[in-house]
């Protein structure tokens, strides 16, 4: 009997410590939203290819492209996302994403070094298509802000992967590796455009 009272006492003590006040924000959906946004660009190989290509191209072109392109891309991508959220029709989203891989990949494999403004305009115009695709998904997210934070960070990390690959051009073998990756990216784009992938 004495033991039962003791157990009851422990349970009551535990419940006293477990009680909590009600907050306006509970955090429910934030982690799920973040993870869903973080993994969204990773599931689409067409997105992954283009993001990595932006990073490699930035590293190929050197300063200031190495930081300018990864800054231009998310900002313009957000503008594309706004178009997607507002439901403003934009034709050729999927072909546009595939073409972005073909063009950026070709620039890398052919070692073309366009002027900075040309590279920025190219990257910005492709970012619109990528942003539109993400923006159209945003209204369905459990926590849109966590979702957008997740996918923007994921995009940035893909750019960093690209920059790391592009930085290999310091070595002769690295240049070959970076250009090969560019070729694979361009081929991936062709695969998506023709419907093979």
């Amino acid at each position: 009997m004495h033991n039962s009272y003791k157990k009851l006492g422990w349970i009551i003590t535990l419940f006293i410590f477990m009680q909590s006040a009600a907050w306006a924000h509970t955090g429910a959906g934030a982690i799920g939203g973040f993870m869903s946004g973080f993994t969204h660009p990773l599931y689409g190989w067409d997105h992954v290819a283009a993001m990595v290509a932006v990073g490699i191209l930035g590293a190929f072109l050197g300063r200031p492209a190495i930081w300018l392109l990864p800054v231009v891309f998310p900002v313009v991508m957000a503008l594309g996302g706004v178009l997607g959220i507002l439901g403003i029709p934009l034709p050729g989203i999927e072909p546009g994403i595939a073409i972005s891989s073909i063009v950026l990949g070709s620039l890398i494999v052919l070692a073309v070094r366009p002027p900075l403004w040309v590279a920025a305009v190219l990257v910005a115009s492709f970012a619109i298509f990528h942003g539109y695709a993400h923006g159209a998904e945003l209204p369905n997210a459990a926590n849109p802000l966590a979702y957008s934070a997740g996918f923007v960070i994921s995009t940035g990390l893909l750019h960093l992967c690209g920059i790391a690959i592009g930085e290999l051009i310091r070595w002769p073998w690295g240049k070959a590796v970076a250009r090969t990756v560019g070729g694979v990216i361009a081929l991936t784009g062709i695969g998506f455009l023709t419907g093979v992938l």
Partner: protein
Amino acid sequence: MSSFFWQGCLHPLIVPAHLMVILALGLLLGQQTPRTIRTSLTVYVVSLGGALLLTRVLPRLGQGELSLLVLALSLGVLVILKLKINLALVITLSMSAGILIGLDSRIANLPGLSANKIYLQLLGTALSASLLLSLPTLISFYLNKLLDGIAVRVIGAWVTAGSLMVLALLLHGLLQASNS
């Protein structure tokens, strides 16, 4: 009692809009001089504390997330541009961040919940939101010396992009609600 304090500490971490503003403000402060950083941090902590206390008497903040996102967007753009900003503007932005985060961290006044527990939770929030700001500020300050602060500007672009999209989504929802 300690669980109330701990919950207060966790609050800024579970609200993405608060985290976004804290991160953006930290990045911006890291781009400033040590004197500006010290003054702005002090203003932020005082504003945050004052606003948290005001939640006990003021009604619920309407469109708190919207205001926080507008602030995060403005801070993100300033981080990308890396302009020379005067002290008054940095202080105003720090004060706005402290006030908005504080007012948006309101605890529902449940019957039977003692005032001590509420104040303990608010103290946890104040402490955590202040320490959280010092972290990105410190990281940004040192990262700014590396590669001309490229990394800081890139993270600023991420904050700007995320805020812009969710802001558009919120405004779109508001417009749709007002039309229907």
